[in-house]
């Protein structure tokens, strides 16, 4: 999921992560090593686990 502009993403532990880019990608598959941001890991998941 892409966020355009300035936003703050609050993760499951209540920690706030402000965006730092013109556009930011938020992890939706739950497997990113850089959560809350997408790191492309969804591409190696079996198709049914991809969001």
């Amino acid at each position, binding site marked *: 999921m*892409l966020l355009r502009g300035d936003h703050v993403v609050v993760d499951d532990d209540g920690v706030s992560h402000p965006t730092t880019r*013109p556009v930011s*990608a938020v992890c939706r598959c739950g497997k990113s*090593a850089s959560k809350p*941001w*997408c*790191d*492309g890991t969804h*591409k190696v998941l079996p198709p049914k686990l991809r969001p």
Partner: protein
Amino acid sequence: MTSLPKPRGRLSDAVLLALRELPEQPVERIDTEPESDDDAAVTLWTLHELAYRGFDEVDDGAEWEPELIRVRRRLEERLEASLRERWPGVPDGLDLERDFLDWVADHDGPSLARHVHSTATREQVLDLLRVRSVYHLKEADPTTWVVPRLPVGPKAALVELQFDEYGVGDPARLHAAMFARGMEASGLRADYAAYVDEAPVEILEQNNALSMFGLQRRLRASALGHLAAFEATSSMPSRRMAQGLDRLGFPVEMAAYYSEHVEADAVHEQTALRDICVALVVEEPVLEADVWFGAWACLDLEDRTAHRLLAGWGVAA
């Protein structure tokens, strides 16, 4: 401080001599054929550089010297013809928006990042960083030429992507500057084009194709297809590169350059495809084949570079 490269044959010899003699000596007609692909590639790389940063020992007017433009055009035609000869054409039955990322993912080329991640030696990684620096120290620049050639929607999206490449207003976050800091921290030279004489022909052709796509308005859609494929093959390989650099004890500055690309390019691969390439093709459908051509060229040229470097290290691709 950018110095001219060493010649690799008769044509580069003639062109480098002509460059050094400007502006006192007008350039005489150069009909010399390139002696080899290396000779052609280093000549074209040098002529393209006149449009970027130029060279200390060359007059700035050389960029628009008609005879040098004629040589450049001849070499660009040669490079484009060799790419088109290898290109299998637009893939059958694929929809650009729906199928592009799967098409890229299905491409099964050798991966330098996997090698760096698990088995490369420190010396091999230093080799790789030196030759990659030819591009990374001007990262994103070739695609910037395309901006004024686009309709409104793709233009806004490309500038948004490039803004991120250029550090969102912070020079320290500019990708090429991050790479330069990594090079310095690793004990390597960070000045522009410092290692071009070490670059094999495959690396020069990667750079030349990017510059040709960027500098020729006719090929603007190929520049953007190349961008989409490049971004779509960057995020996870960048994570492997960062982990491989950690494994070998490289300084954090070098790994930071690759870590930055993990998240940045997970975004860019989405916007480069949808907001830039697809949006352009919606407005100018005739450009779709050029998008696929540029994307294919990106993957093909990277395969050739990977084969060349891995073979040089005695590693099976």
